[in-house]
């Protein structure tokens, strides 16, 4: 019987079984950033340990970097302290650091792929739950805690339980105006925020076959929001094409050998899965979250659910809590909610193609009065290419602020934050209470083009109508 990619990669990296039954798993690639690594380096120093495989650890700085302050010291001394600590730790341990002066700095999940560090058939860990992004390349990639960051630094391994695998097939063509972001919001709405607990998600089907790498990354990125620590797509020609020629991709004869090996990691046609879910791409709508978990989403044509419609008492409590926090009425239309802020960026949707797609449509439009709209490239590389293409000018002309690379308003560890109960149309990945920096701030997750539509109309809108898609309401 065949094996899934998950099983093959797991087997190739399983070192041995530990006393409690867990596996000691080799972590081939370790990505670190300033928030979850300083304590781990501190623990290493306390134990007198060194980084065991420094050439397999790569660092960047993203969460705390201000996107509108180019010169250090930053106005926030805590942020300045964190970047300096990372510099020191990387220098002392011979770890490659994509610092702000390298032209390669950015959100860790954007930097890894664009540098060609993220490769098929590898294991990748990072002290960040959105690490599953790298699964788009057919890697087994997942978030870890700081004690595990310590474990990887000291041993290049962690203790882990093997996961089950759920195959999610999405077949068909997405309707115009429906994007990868809608696919993952739809999946989470369908399977729930804890449906993926204990599973790796294997995303497959013709929709994924036809996706670009950046689209695959958007979906894999939010696996954890559905409870799945790992999400991946089998590697194919699209994957290899993306990687070819990137700085850390194999070169020459090693490239050919690597591609052959990468192909062998793809799930076998006759492998079995612990669960299979089939989704018809044509049924997916532009999806917007109305609540305080990423599973609380509806199609743009739908209404927000009512408390009474929820099936169980605990569901009714959840809906009631979400409606109260969001200041929305159950049963009201999602369309037309007035927004204060529009955020385009993050490890979910801060890539070149996200900005290219929006730029195609916003020419001739203006950000609505009273709305603050910011565009934050996911990396310095993304920013540079976008600027060479003139995208920055298109956004600025339309009334958006064009910022420097970083996590920005996704999680508010930097100056980009909501104020009071501002409502934000956001291309990021989490709508938790207080996520965007104000304890009463409100987040609605949606695709980049839907964020742009909300920005120019000042309210949650159907991008297909706003931007004159021929097939709107088809």
């Amino acid at each position: 019987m065949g094996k899934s990619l998950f099983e093959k990669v797991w087997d190739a990296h399983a070192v041995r079984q530990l006393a409690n039954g867990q596996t000691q798993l080799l972590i081939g690639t370790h990505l670190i950033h300033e928030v979850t690594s300083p304590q781990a380096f501190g623990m290493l120093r306390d134990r007198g340990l060194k980084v065991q495989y420094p050439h397999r650890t790569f660092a960047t700085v993203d969460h705390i970097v201000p996107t509108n302050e180019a010169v250090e010291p930053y106005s926030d001394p805590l942020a300045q302290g964190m970047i300096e600590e990372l510099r020191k730790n990387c220098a002392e341990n011979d770890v490659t650091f994509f610092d702000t002066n390298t032209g390669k700095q950015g959100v860790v999940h954007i930097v890894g792929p664009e540098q060609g560090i993220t490769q098929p058939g590898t294991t990748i860990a990072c002290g960040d739950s959105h690490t599953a992004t790298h699964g788009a390349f057919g890697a087994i990639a997942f978030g870890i805690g700081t004690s595990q960051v310590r474990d990887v630094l000291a041993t290049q391994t962690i203790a882990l339980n093997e996961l089950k695998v759920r195959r999610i097939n999405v077949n068909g063509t997405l309707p115009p105006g429906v994007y990868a972001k809608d696919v993952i919001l739809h999946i989470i709405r369908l399977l729930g925020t804890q449906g993926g607990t204990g599973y790796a998600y294997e995303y497959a089907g013709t929709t994924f076959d036809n996706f670009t790498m950046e689209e695959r990354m958007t979906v894999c990125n939010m696996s954890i929001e559905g409870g799945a620590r790992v999400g991946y797509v089998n590697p194919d020609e699209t994957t290899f094409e993306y990687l070819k020629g990137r700085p850390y991709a194999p070169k020459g004869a090693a490239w050919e050998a690597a591609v052959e090996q990468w192909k062998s990691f793809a799930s076998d046609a006759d492998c079995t899965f612990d669960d299979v879910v089939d989704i018809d791409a044509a049924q997916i709508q532009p999806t917007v979250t109305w609540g305080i978990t990423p599973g609380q989403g509806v199609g743009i044509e739908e209404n927000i659910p009512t408390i009474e419609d929820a099936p169980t008492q605990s569901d009714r409590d959840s809906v009631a809590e979400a409606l109260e926090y969001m200041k929305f009425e159950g049963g009201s239309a999602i369309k037309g909610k007035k927004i204060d802020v529009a955020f385009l960026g993050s490890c979910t949707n801060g890539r070149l193609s996200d900005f290219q797609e929006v730029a195609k449509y916003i020419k001739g439009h203006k950000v609505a009065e009273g709305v603050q709209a910011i565009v934050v490239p996911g990396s310095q590389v993304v920013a540079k290419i976008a600027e060479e293409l003139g995208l920055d000018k298109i956004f600025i002309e339309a009334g958006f602020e064009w910022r420097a690379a970083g996590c920005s308003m996704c999680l508010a560890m930097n100056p980009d934050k909501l104020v009071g109960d501002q409502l934000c149309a956001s291309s990021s990945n989490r709508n938790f209470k207080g996520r965007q920096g104000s304890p009463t701030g409100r987040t609605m997750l949606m695709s980049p083009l839907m964020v742009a539509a909300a920005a120019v109309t000042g309210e949650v809108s159907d991008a297909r109508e706003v931007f004159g898609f021929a097939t709107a309401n088809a």
Partner: protein
Amino acid sequence: MPSTPIKQVTGKGVYVPGDDIDTDRIIPARFMKCITFDGLGEYLFHDVRKTESGEDKKHNLNDPRFAEASIIVSGNNFGCGSSREHAPQSILRAGYNAVIAGSFAEIFFGNSTNLGVVCVIASDADRATIAQAIEANPELEITIDVEDHKIWFGDQSVPCEIKPGARDSLLSGNYDPLDELLEGSADVAKTAGALPYMQA
């Protein structure tokens, strides 16, 4: 060097109602601008406890009757969201050493176990019973018996679940795996040696 085995956790309880208590709620990101975990306990559930102007909200976590609690009772999917170990670190540093929930997010569960914070699963009905008992008598002593899969409170007990691997680790005191991982270094080198991308 193994830690002290954890066979039982005993203490008073506090009920934190709600499903999907996420890591941003446990420790808001703005308090994570730090290079050590010291002092994180102060910010545990900050926005659940405080208004924007810094006053205490009406919540069990602010109620002096539950001030001595060391066991949190909560809903389903506790700890969802981020991989930040800051979440269980802040729980531990605020004086709590166990969480009873309907289910746990995976990364949170692993992070907690590594720190010796005991996370056990109990049914909705049983957690409601425990929450009522705590409300009726905040002094009530709760004991989570990791070995026997039971939660005792007063003269009652209800069953609880804990992942077998985590249970073994707690009972043996080997919940921090670093020493065991270090012992495997020769095997690690062998596994790494067989993978082309691992070569320097």
